[in-house]
């Protein structure tokens, strides 16, 4: 292959290194107004009265809205949220009123003049408490909410989804087990921290057409949500996402768009902009849900896991329109990448008065694997196996079955395990560096499937130009992962024209074709396949015309370097340029007209699992498997941990762009390290105590370890050129591998993240006593 599998340079590179790419906050429109938001200082409180008179009187204020003006709920999977609180505020920071004014400063000043009277309610600040019988209800009307049929809310409680997985006969397996062990873990809330905060502009024209410029990953999903919330037909609602400065899931759904749209609807003609501050980003955008987990494991004498019983309690926050799917995904992935015959899993998404939980890179998987992979090491030690051995015995191999009962035909997990074990030298004990510093190694496996509706679709259009160049239109968003480049490579490969002759356009629901969402590591796979199909479509049109022109059967023609060429007589050829607008005959007449290739894709044959057992023949598109190994050094006097080395190997089916895929894994490792060692959204009575970079630390260049990054390629037959997704899966094993390495180094097992110096030192001291 000429372009696929090569490190083609990023097609968006020059725009980004010159600072010329315009992100939403860089857009200046004439007569633009600026919004600011009044937020609840309480985690749970009835809104008794809102007095906007003083704010309204301020010079430069154009409009003020409160929640009672637009009471229709929105949400992706469960319609449970309002963009402005209606009746009561459910988290500290929830928007209760919004102002728009001539300048940001005036808008902010006006916000300070709004007086809100609250009646403070008891708050749910722990998901486990939220499940108790007498817990205050965050959503008393849950039973009335519209919900996709694959989710199971329990009205009258705070449980917005109870997902069950029942495979085999777990109770019996526990009875018969050689050894049973139970462990509990807690994963706190973290935030995605894209360097670009959320931002959006909304403008409604005189004829009722609304345009929203939003830094969003999924323009079509955003369009759909907003259409429902504001009763605007889809043909009158245009969502443009010109560039996204990092998303990681936080920009997958709707957040601040719904705050400015009502203002835009009332002030027709005026564009209204709202940009979050970093503090907003930590409190008022999505956060990763917290997780309380309990894992009970049964093993036989040989170390084969015979059963698991999992309880996952997700701290979903005030709204779980997206979070319900995280509980579901965690439920059906709850075995981890292991072949286990008997499974009993309950995964609960629970409303709390915490910031809104949402999808974060590998949602559900990073959290449960922190528990699963540590649990596995504990089990291994108890029965006298090494971490490598227990994974070798139980790891998923072709012929095994997943927790949903699906037969596995493709899994490179064992190859990844061998590769990583060799790269990290798992069987060699780490050398001591000094008497005050100890070293250790750990490994962890991971798996993930795209957590999406069965019929999540992608589409693409390729338009050929009369000079032999092409335009590729998709709505897969390049949020940094490099999809613009990868889509271009796939098109270049199929059409056999060089990538620099293809211009890709994305992110405009009026102009670029449907894409469900840029999430779930599904873009290379799904949008890539749509691009592949679109180019095949264009190709078949080219061959059809060439057959007429050259008098050679289509089957004997191929595309090569901008030409349609005879496979037999290479000098018989016609330029793609000469066919782009159709075929013209010697007499000047023409046929066919301009060539436009169209491609659509839905992963084939994915069917809902049984709603009582979670069992199904093919409930997900595919699984991505991988392994990481790390070596750490722990300072036993201070508890500080340094990650020295990370080895990673994933089965990605096919590497489309080696340089870009490496970048995905490197970034994922650092994010995994961040959650393992540094990051936690500290919540006190529902309030975020560290909503800034001063006290929420993400890794810097000073923290990077040596990274050894490898891939194996067992093709995914439905993916383009065999490719499957990896950007999220690559983060999944990092944190548990670090936890396991810390244990190897110190004998300390921490059942919670982040594993800070203080926690480690405290555990070391406790162990000494």
């Amino acid at each position, binding site marked *: 292959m000429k372009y696929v599998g090569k490190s083609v340079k990023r097609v968006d590179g020059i725009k980004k290194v010159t600072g010329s790419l315009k992100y939403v906050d860089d857009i200046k429109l004439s007569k633009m107004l600026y919004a600011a938001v009044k937020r609840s200082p309480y985690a749970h409180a009835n809104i008794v009265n809102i007095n906007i008179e003083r704010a309204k009187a301020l010079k430069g204020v154009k409009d003020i809205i409160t929640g009672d003006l637009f009471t229709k709920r929105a949400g992706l999977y469960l319609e449970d949220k309002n963009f402005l609180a209606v009746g009561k505020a459910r988290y500290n920071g929830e928007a209760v009123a919004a102002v728009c004014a001539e300048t940001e*400063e005036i808008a902010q000043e006006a916000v300070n003049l709004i007086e809100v009277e609250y009646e403070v309610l008891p708050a749910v600040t722990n998901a486990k408490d939220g499940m108790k019988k007498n817990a205050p209800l965050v959503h008393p009307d849950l039973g009335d909410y519209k919900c996709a049929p694959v989710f199971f809310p329990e009205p009258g409680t705070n449980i917005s989804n109870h997902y069950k997985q029942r495979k085999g006969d777990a109770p019996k397996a526990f009875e018969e087990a050689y050894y049973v062990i139970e462990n509990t873990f807690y994963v706190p809330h973290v935030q995605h921290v894209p360097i670009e905060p959320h931002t959006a502009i909304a403008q409604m024209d005189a004829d009722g057409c609304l345009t929203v410029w939003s830094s969003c990953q999924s323009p079509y999903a955003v369009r759909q949500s907003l259409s429902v919330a504001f009763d605007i037909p889809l043909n009158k609602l245009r969502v443009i996402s010109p560039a996204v400065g990092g998303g990681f899931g936080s920009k997958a759904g709707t957040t601040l768009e719904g705050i400015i749209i009502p203002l835009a609807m009332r002030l027709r003609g005026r564009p209204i902009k709202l940009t979050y501050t970093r503090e907003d980003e930590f409190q008022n955008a999505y956060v990763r849900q917290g997780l309380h987990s309990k894992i009970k494991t049964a093993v036989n004498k040989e170390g084969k896991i015979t059963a698991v019983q999992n309880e996952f309690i997700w701290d979903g926050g005030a709204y779980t329109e997206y979070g319900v799917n995280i509980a579901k995904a965690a439920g059906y992935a709850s075995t981890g990448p292991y072949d286990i015959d008997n499974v009993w899993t309950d995964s609960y998404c629970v409303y709390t008065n915490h910031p809104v939980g949402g999808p974060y890179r590998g949602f559900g998987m990073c959290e449960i694997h922190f528990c699963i992979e540590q649990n596995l090491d504990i089990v291994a030690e108890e029965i006298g196996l090494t971490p490598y051995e227990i994974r070798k015995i139980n790891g998923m191999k072709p012929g095994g079955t997943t927790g949903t009962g699906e037969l596995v035909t493709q899994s490179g997990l064992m190859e990844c395990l061998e590769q990583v074990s060799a790269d990290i030298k798992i069987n060699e004990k780490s050398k001591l560096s000094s008497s005050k510093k100890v070293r250790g190694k750990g490994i962890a496996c991971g798996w993930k499937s795209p957590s999406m509706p069965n019929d999540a679709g992608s589409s693409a259009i390729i338009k050929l130009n009369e000079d032999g160049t092409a335009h590729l239109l998709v709505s897969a968003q390049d949020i940094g992962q490099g999809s613009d480049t990868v889509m271009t490579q796939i098109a270049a490969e199929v059409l056999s024209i060089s990538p620099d002759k293809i211009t890709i356009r994305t992110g405009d629901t009026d102009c670029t074709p449907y894409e469900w969402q840029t999430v779930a590591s599904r873009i290379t796979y799904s949008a890539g396949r749509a691009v592949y199909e679109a180019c095949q479509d264009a190709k078949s049109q080219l061959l059809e015309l060439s057959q007429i022109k050259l008098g050679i059967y289509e089957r004997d023609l191929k595309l090569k370097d901008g030409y349609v060429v005879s496979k037999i007589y290479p000098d018989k050829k016609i330029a793609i340029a000469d066919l782009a607008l159709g075929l013209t005959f010697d007499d000047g007449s023409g046929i066919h007209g301009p060539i436009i290739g169209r491609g659509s894709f839905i992963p084939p044959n994915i069917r809902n699992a049984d709603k009582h057992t979670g069992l199904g023949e093919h409930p997900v598109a595919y699984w991505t498997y991988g392994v990481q190994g790390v070596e750490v050094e722990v300072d036993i*006097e*201070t508890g*500080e941990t340094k990650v020295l080395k990370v080895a990673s190997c994933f089965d990605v089916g096919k590497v489309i762009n080696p340089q870009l895929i490496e970048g995905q894994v490197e970034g994922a490792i650092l994010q995994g390290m961040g959650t393992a060692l*540094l990051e936690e959204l*500290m919540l006190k009575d529902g309030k975020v*105590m*560290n909503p800034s970079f*001063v*006290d929420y*630390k993400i*890794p*810097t*260049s*000073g*923290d990077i370890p040596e990274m050894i990054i490898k891939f194996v390629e067992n093709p995914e037959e439905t993916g383009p050129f065999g490719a499957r997704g990896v950007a999220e899966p690559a983060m999944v094993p990092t944190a548990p591998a670090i936890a396991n390495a810390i244990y190897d180094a110190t004998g300390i097992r921490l059942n919670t993240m982040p594993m*800070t*110096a*203080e926690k480690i*030192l*405290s555990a070391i*001291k406790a162990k000494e006593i």
Partner: protein
Amino acid sequence: MNSVEYYSPTSLKEALNLLAAYGEEASILNGGTDLIVRMREGQSKPKVIVDIKKIDELHKIEIEDNYVFIGACVHLNDLGKHQYIIEKYPFLAKAALSIGSNQVRNRATCIGNICNASPLADTATPLLSLNADVHIYSENGLRTVPLNQFFVFVRKTILKQDEIVTGISFEDDDSILGVFYKMSRRKEVDLSTVCSTVIKSNKGYFVSYGAVAPTPVRLYKTESFLNENTLSQETIKEACMIASQEVSPISDIRATEKYRREIVEVTLQNSLLEWL
């Protein structure tokens, strides 16, 4: 940010006049890395800003007459990369370079770090242990105040509204050896969980800690113990115990009181072990 009137005087006299004229409404702007953040967050709302960076005499580092003088507008990077400081007072250079990012250190100053009176000011502990004097200029002329009398409480110093700190000085002493430690959650660009400077010279031991009390502090009891005893494994251990009791840290979102006391012990022990 609120609306402000901006002045950039070129002499100390002019600056004093402005401070006198506007009183409480005026704020001195030096590196700005603290003030501008506070203004953004609405914690400081000055009506008048007096930018002192155009006053040439405040930009010097002077080594003469057995004294080292660091001017008010000397950036942390200039201090941390100053050849003489690196050679003779590496712990001070290290402290200066441990603050913020490179970009911050290109603006922030050592004097700003001191005048903010943060309990965890990183350059405060080396200067406290160096027995530095703060040079304060006012209508009545220049006076010097020992740094250990300069801090009053969290973000509070003895400085009056119409006074300007022109710099800080300490005796240039060839016998000084010192060790600076900074414990932080993240390796680069973080605030101290605990910071410390221990100095040993012909005059004895000088031990200072940050982030363990409302202001950066000298640990006088610990110092007396060290000065009265010969350094050994045992005395180091005892000194550490004394130090961990002498400090009065609090628990906050960065660390607990207990951890801070433990780190005080570890850092003091490791500092003293250098000389065993």
